[in-house]
């Protein structure tokens, strides 16, 4: 980013009549004439003291911008994760239950499409049809405009969920497709085990055999896989937020990049990295709780 041409004073003031001499003076005053390495060391020093700096493009401190954007992204990503995970596992269970019959083939085709089709395309299609043509969901934003701020809390909550539906739904679909494909394969591997035969010999329904015996033995790797897939999910969120105008971390980062707002970009990337690492540790812990035998197996 440092090597690309331009800086805050070139882009933010583009087309304005600020003379080059004034720009040069500002660059000097804010230290933009220093070499990048030196500026990074100064930024890291400030960071060590808890200073994230000032986001010039927003005319606000970086910390304030992030504090506002982060919860929105967390809501988006976690709703997408939970919904996508549940949908994916349900799809895989249905596929294995009706293996090699039409539900398996249909869901297999859908999940393959879900993995293969880029999410921005899904997002644009959902926006066009569900948003613009049929007007079921709003196409962008966090909530309704106008007097919406005066609505009672529960109405605002519903309004928020209504606006969340499309971006979270599109993200959830891509999660669901991946989860379903891996979960189906893991389930099929477990279905050959002897204890599945035992479960059937007990007179259990096939659905109970799947949910009570196959799934607990097949879900561990899928949770672990989710931990690995989280960074790409965060990456996907950048696109989705941009498309649906969801003012979270992704959109903040995107705008900051265009505006060459170095402190904001650095802080956003740093925060995303920390979240990815923490989330990774969390999924490992969840996998350990869901599949407790792993460590104590002989």
């Amino acid at each position, binding site marked *: 980013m440092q090597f690309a041409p331009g800086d805050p004073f070139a882009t933010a003031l583009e087309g304005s009549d600020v003379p080059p001499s004034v720009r040069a003076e500002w660059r000097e005053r804010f230290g933009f004439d220093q070499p990048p390495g030196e500026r990074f060391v100064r930024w890291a020093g400030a960071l060590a003291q808890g200073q994230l700096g000032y986001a010039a493009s927003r005319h606000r401190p970086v910390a304030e911008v992030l504090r506002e954007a982060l919860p929105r992204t967390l809501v988006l990503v976690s709703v997408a994760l939970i919904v996508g995970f549940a949908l994916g596992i349900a799809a895989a269970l249905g596929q294995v239950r009706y293996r090699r019959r039409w539900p398996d083939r249909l869901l297999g085709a859908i999940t393959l499409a879900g993995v293969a089709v880029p999410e921005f395309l899904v997002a644009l299609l959902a926006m066009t049809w569900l948003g613009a043509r049929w007007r079921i969901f709003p196409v962008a934003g966090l909530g309704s405009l106008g007097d919406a701020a005066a609505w009672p809390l529960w109405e605002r909550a519903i309004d928020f969920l209504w606006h969340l539906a499309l971006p979270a739904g599109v993200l959830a679909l891509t999660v669901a497709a991946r989860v379903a494909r891996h979960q189906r394969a893991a389930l099929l591997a477990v279905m050959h085990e*002897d204890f599945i*035969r*035992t479960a059937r010999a007990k007179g*259990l329904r096939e659905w109970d055999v799947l949910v009570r*015996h196959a799934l*607990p033995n097949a879900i561990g790797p899928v949770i672990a896989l989710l931990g690995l897939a989280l960074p790409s999910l965060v990456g996907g969120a950048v696109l989705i937020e941009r498309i649906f105008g969801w003012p979270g971390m992704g959109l903040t980062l995107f705008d900051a990049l265009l505006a060459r707002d170095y402190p904001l970009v650095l802080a956003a990337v740093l925060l995303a990295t920390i979240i990815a690492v923490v989330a990774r540790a969390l999924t490992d812990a969840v996998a350990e709780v869901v599949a407790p035998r792993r460590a104590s197996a002989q």
Partner: protein
Amino acid sequence: MTALLQVEGLCVSVAHPGNSDPVSLLRDVRFALSPGETVGVLGASGSGKTTLALALMGLLPRDFTATGAVHFDGHELLSLSEGARRSLRARRISIVFQEPLTALNPRQRIGAQVAEVARAHGERNATRAHRLAVEMLSRTGLDDADERAHRFPHEVSGGERQRALLAMALLLDPALLIADEPTSALDVTVQAQVLQLLRAQQRERGMALLLVSHDLGVIATTCARTIVLHEGHVIEDTPTRQLLAAPEQPQSRALVDAVRPPEPAP
């Protein structure tokens, strides 16, 4: 006495994808079993013993086809709906499998796995199902069944696992128990204990027992009658005593000779 189980002309074949001719695993198998009778099914590996056990349970893999007739307890098993067969499983006809470690769900406590049998057949009260399971575990000779019930399969011994499997099979007091090589994976001393337990439970309940084994020694101590399977055919169906004294078929003789002590060296 009318037969509890009557197998007539049972044929099982499996179609291999890419191979036009289905492979026959059981051919025209016929035998009968009276209530409370103990019958051994003897045969070398690949003779179709396990296929027979699975066919009786209705647990053959989907690409297997079974034809013929299996009358059990007033039902024609092969033409029964899946739901009706399911309700017979573990309630009227049970099975104990060979390998007790892999036959148990590694992520479920033993007590829960036994209790699940009761719950699958209509017991809605979880506490009652659990109590029933613990009781049955102690009746199958699990020491300290209350505590063992809370353990995972890998936390108990092989013999204890086999006892847990037996507790599952016996929980609802079935009329027929199929034991598919129940002792092959166990130490010799544990083998003897499990066989003794099988015999005791069989006598106590007056249930019929179909003991599947490649080991005539195991069958001879337990079963009054023996059916010998060879390449999917029943080649002999005689009292065990007679089989031991004078096997008719050369294949049965080989299985009988296998358990005779060798001639002492000169």
